């Protein structure tokens, strides 16, 4: 008798577990579907004949499937050039920012020199100032230097941030000092210690900052919008926006262009999913 009820309870437990699980999967699938809907709709529209988009009810699977839109969009504006510009700008900003931030952060964390703490306070204070405040004077400086519509304008102002310095300094403070002291006794120079001891230890923090900076500059919209005029100097986001200006309601072309811009990022993201998400939590919460 006792055995029986035990079995019965277990069975019921298993069943309610199963119901709970299927309910969760159903809910997740509905939500997942809603999240994917705009992407699927983008892909679907991009493969349609222009006339097909005005059909009611809307068709999810295009008939016929055409790739013409991609060719036409690609030839209408220099997307290849936008890609190259975006890569150049993002790579330069990322390497530059990580390197100069790491150097400065190490100095703030470990080296004693007069005025260090006051300087650091100055860095901290400017972190609160929104980019829109400095944007106008920086634009004027760039204009006076004749750098509008050049890589200098796109890259240089992005090279230095207080944020990266702050984040890396906090990380360097957590590295035990003994390691460096051992290197000092061995007669290593300060730069040698930084390069050979500290940087390798800081790899996870550097990678996180790099991902964050790269994504930020890859998606940056306002600054490239302000400092570029010619098609040849535009980055992807601004290039796509000006493509919209040319083909306001040619939905098949607009969606094909959006796919061209989105697809590489989505592919990279899916293959490095863990890396992205971990980095974002780290910089989000602890930075």
């Amino acid at each position, binding site marked *: 008798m006792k055995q029986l009820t035990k079995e019965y309870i277990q069975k019921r437990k298993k069943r309610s577990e199963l119901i709970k699980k299927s309910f969760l999967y159903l809910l997740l699938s509905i939500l997942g579907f809603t999240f994917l809907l*705009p992407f699927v709709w983008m892909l679907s529209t991009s493969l349609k004949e222009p006339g097909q988009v005005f059909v009611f009810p809307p068709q999810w699977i295009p008939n016929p499937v055409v790739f013409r839109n991609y060719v036409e969009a690609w030839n209408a504006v220099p997307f290849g050039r936008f890609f190259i510009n975006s890569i150049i700008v993002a790579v330069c900003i990322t390497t530059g920012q990580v390197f100069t931030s790491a150097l*400065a952060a190490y100095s703030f964390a470990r080296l004693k020199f007069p005025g260090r703490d006051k300087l650091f306070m100055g860095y901290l204070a400017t972190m609160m100032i929104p980019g829109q405040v400095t944007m106008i004077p920086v634009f004027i400086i760039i204009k006076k230097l004749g750098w509008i519509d050049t890589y200098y304008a796109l890259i240089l*102002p992005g090279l230095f941030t207080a944020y990266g310095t702050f984040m890396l300094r906090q990380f360097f403070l957590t590295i035990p000092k003994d390691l460096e002291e051992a290197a000092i006794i061995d007669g290593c120079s300060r730069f040698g210690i930084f390069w050979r001891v500290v940087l390798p230890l800081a790899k996870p923090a550097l990678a996180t900052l790099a991902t964050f900076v790269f994504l930020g500059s890859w998606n940056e*919209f306002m600054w490239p919008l302000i400092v570029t005029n010619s098609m040849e100097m535009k980055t992807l986001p601004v290039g796509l926006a000006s493509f919209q200006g040319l083909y306001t309601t040619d939905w098949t072309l607009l969606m094909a262009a959006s796919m061209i811009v989105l697809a590489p990022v989505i592919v990279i993201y899916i293959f490095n999913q863990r890396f992205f998400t971990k980095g974002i939590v780290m910089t989000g919460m602890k930075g």
Partner: protein
Amino acid sequence: MKTKTRKNWQDIIAGYTFILPNFTGFLVFTSIPVIASLVLAFLSWDILTPAKFVGFNNFITLFKDKDFWYYLYNTVFFMLGIPLSMAFSLFLAILVNQKLKGITIFRTIFFLPVISSMVAIALVWRWIYNPDFGLLNSFLRYFLKQQPQWLSSTLWAKPALMFMGIWNGAGYSMLLYLAALQSIPEDLYEAARIDGASAWQQFRKITWPMLSFVNFFVIVMGVIGGFQAFGVQYVMTGGGPAGSTTTVVYYVYNNAFQWFKMGYASSIAWVLFIFIFGFTLLQWKYGKKAGEYY
């Protein structure tokens, strides 16, 4: 002793050299511009003709500028999406925190809009919101005789952008909530279950208080980000119809780079800064308190 002072000197020299590259950039692109911006706020200048000192005139004009107040209202209106987005993100986080097979696939999907290019996302949503042939109205046609005009309507444009913003950003907060949920020690729940606490009581008394830090963080970052809203509005509506989606930063952009009123634009940027600064101070003051829970 002698070697020690030499070491100190070396450290001082190294200290300055290490900072130099970053500091130069910091000086040219941050410190000097901040001061310059403050000076500009008291000038009337179109870059081409010599600048004129106008005292507090820019701020007085701004105070009386009906457009500015309307755009500020729009900006704050968009921020009403923050609590909605938080509730939704927390819901998603609880869902993807379940131990189920293939759950990472759903995490990946919910996070997808976050890493996607804002302009591409904005374009597809403009298409979805299209009043005549868009996906949304094609669907609504089954239920409503007259569908909202969405982005061409002064009434619906703001909620439409807000809704899109929730879809776009939910994955980011979801991830923060997820990290927080996973850091709550399991024994707390076990102890509560032994005491006979219901699922809701467990959420109310354990989960919710443990999330206070993330809640706070998400609100503050949301508000700071909300004050800086620009790109989506620029791409999707151009600030219209009739200025109903123009934000404060959009107004700064128009003044500075369309109408070349550098002084006036700077004064708006400074007022914006004061708002953001207020919220950052709040964060510092209460954030530390909320952090103690954690």
